[in-house]
Structures are given as structure tokens and as C-alpha cells.
């Protein structure tokens, strides 16, 4: 359940953003959770539902989670494929060893405040 600490970090960031822009309400939050980030999306949403209520600034805010794909590079031919789920083999040469690149970030993309 490290999602709880991640969401607490998110809420801290939202609080600083609101202070920075002199706003007092967070309306919507968009977070990109990569398929290799090791974060369970349901647990993240659950933690957000609970922790956002604790703060008047974030209470009622809606969370949108997007899931940008990772890139898999073939060790043989170098072909790169974007995918949310690891491909079994290279589309071009059928090699099964693919090196994952990216897809491991948890990024706060966009915030709507008023």
C-alpha cells in the first residue's frame, strides 16, 4: 500500500500549487500512472478518495488517471514498440528479449483550480 504515501505526496503538491496560484479549491486532477510504475490504479484511486476528503482544498476534487504506454526495444533488431502490456516478442523479428524504456513514472499532469 505505498499508494497511500504517493497520494499523500500528491496532495502536498496540490496544496503548494494552490498557494502558489492563490487559489482555494482543486477541481480536477490528472495523473499519468505508467504500466511499469508498480502502482495499483485502484489502490491509488482509493487512497485519493480517502485522503482528498481530509483537506478542504482537495475535498470533492475529481481524479482522472491515464495510463501512458511503455516502450519496448528489441535487443536483436532494435525495433521499438509502445505498449501498455509487455509484448511476448518483437513484432519484426520475433525475438523475446525486449528492454523496457519509460512507463515507470507517476506524473501529475494537469490541475484545474479555482
Amino acid at each position, binding site marked *: 500500500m505505498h499508494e497511500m504515501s*504517493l497520494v499523500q*505526496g500528491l496532495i502536498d503538491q496540490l496544496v503548494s500549487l494552490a498557494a502558489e*496560484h492563490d*487559489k482555494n479549491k482543486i477541481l480536477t486532477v490528472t495523473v499519468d500512472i505508467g504500466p511499469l*510504475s*508498480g502502482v495499483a490504479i485502484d489502490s491509488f484511486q482509493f487512497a485519493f478518495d480517502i485522503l482528498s476528503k481530509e483537506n478542504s482544498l482537495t475535498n470533492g476534487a475529481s481524479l482522472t488517471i491515464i495510463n501512458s504506454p511503455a516502450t519496448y526495444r528489441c*535487443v536483436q533488431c532494435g525495433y521499438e514498440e509502445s505498449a501498455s502490456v509487455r509484448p511476448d516478442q518483437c513484432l519484426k523479428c520475433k525475438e523475446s528479449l525486449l528492454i523496457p524504456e519509460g512507463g515507470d513514472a*507517476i506524473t501529475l499532469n494537469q490541475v484545474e*483550480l*479555482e
Partner: protein
Amino acid sequence: MCDSCGCDLTHTHTHDHDHDHKHTHNSQVIEVHKNLLAANDALAAGNRAHFDAKGIVAINLISSPGSGKTTLLEKTIERLKGSIRIGVIEGDIETDRDAQRIRAKGVPVIQLTTGGACHLDAGQIHKGFHLLEHEPGGDQLDILFIENVGNLVCPATFDLGEHQRVVLVSVPEGPDKPSKYPKAFISSQVFVISKTDLLPYFDFPVAEAKADALHLNPRLQVMDLSSTTGEGFDAWIEYLTSLHSKNQQTAA
């Protein structure tokens, strides 16, 4: 007073705009694109720079509870005594039992108890390392081992500032751990299969586990060993000594 429009209502007003005076609440959209782990990652980068400045190689050990991390460390300390100076930061939810075991081997150690948290983070390592520096011998180290909280899931997400991440799976746990817990294997440099002395009693196809792990991360260095019998331990010691000598060359 409401900051957006100057109306005299406090924040208890709802946003259905049923009050009759004319105004609009202007919302603003901000593009942030900032990693949620940015705070942790910044602290981790600070830790790494500090380790570099002191000529230390830091190794983060990750595994399920009971995979043999502490025993591996005990045997490693015995083998490297007199040639490589080792320090250890122990992470557990409760108790300092692991630290006591390491202390008994005569190397500086600090126990961090997370009090329930399922992983160590870079901030804890920052504090823990400063405490370790005040232990006898703690200011003169070649290799720092960080034994993470026993958990194959959460620790994988948090960079501690280590140079190398080593993931362990013991034979009784079964060979399917890489496929089930991919993040730990994708983010590690080394995969150690431990307790190989138990292979006769468990169904653990070593080749299959290795292939699964390499399928996830072709760059993984895989070794299998038994801390009890010492079988396969030479490869592990060689890995550590070569890390140490490379680090000394860089520093020189």
C-alpha cells in the same frame, strides 16, 4: 471572503451557483507534468552524490520477508572482512533484531524501523546514513548495504540513492516471483536466487526463473547461491569486489 469573486460567502458555499448575484468562478487549468516521486528522487540524488563524494558504493537489497537478506549480509561480511569495509542500514517495520545480527559481525549498522510503512524512502536513508556515520567505523566505508523492508512490491518504487539494486528470491518461494512482481526485477541490476541448498526439496526450476527474469529485464545479472553451504557465493563476492575496485578507479 471568497478569493475568486469577492462574495462574502466562505468556503462552505456550494458550487451550484444558486445565489443570484452575477459572477463567475474562474477556474484555471495548470499543466504541471511533475513526477509524484520528485521529492523522493531529489533526496535520492542527494544521497547518491553524498555516497559518491565519500567513495561509497550503495546497494539496495530487496526481497520478500525471509528470503535470506540478513544471512546473505552476515556471510558477505565474514568473507570480505579485512578487505572491504562494509556498513549496513537495516529497514524493518519493527524490532532491531536484524541490526543486532549484523552488529555481532563487527560492522557499523543502523536500524531504521518504519513503524508500519512497507518501504524505505530516500529521506529515511538520508537520516539513517548520518546516524551510521557516527557509529564506530561508520565514517570509513567502501560498501553500504541497505536492507529494505521485506516486501517485493512497494520498495521497488522508491529510489534510495543506491548505485545498485539487488533483488533476492529464495528457492522455497517458488520460481514465479519475477513474473508476478515485475517492477522489482525491471528496476534491479542483479537477481540473486538464494537458498539453493534447498533445491532438492522444492520444485524450483532455476533455468525457468532466470529466463523469466531476463525476459522482463535482459540487462539483469543473475546468480544463484546458498549462504549456508557457500555454493555459488564466489560469484557474489566477485561481483562486490569488482564494484568496489571500479569505484576506486573512478575515485582515483
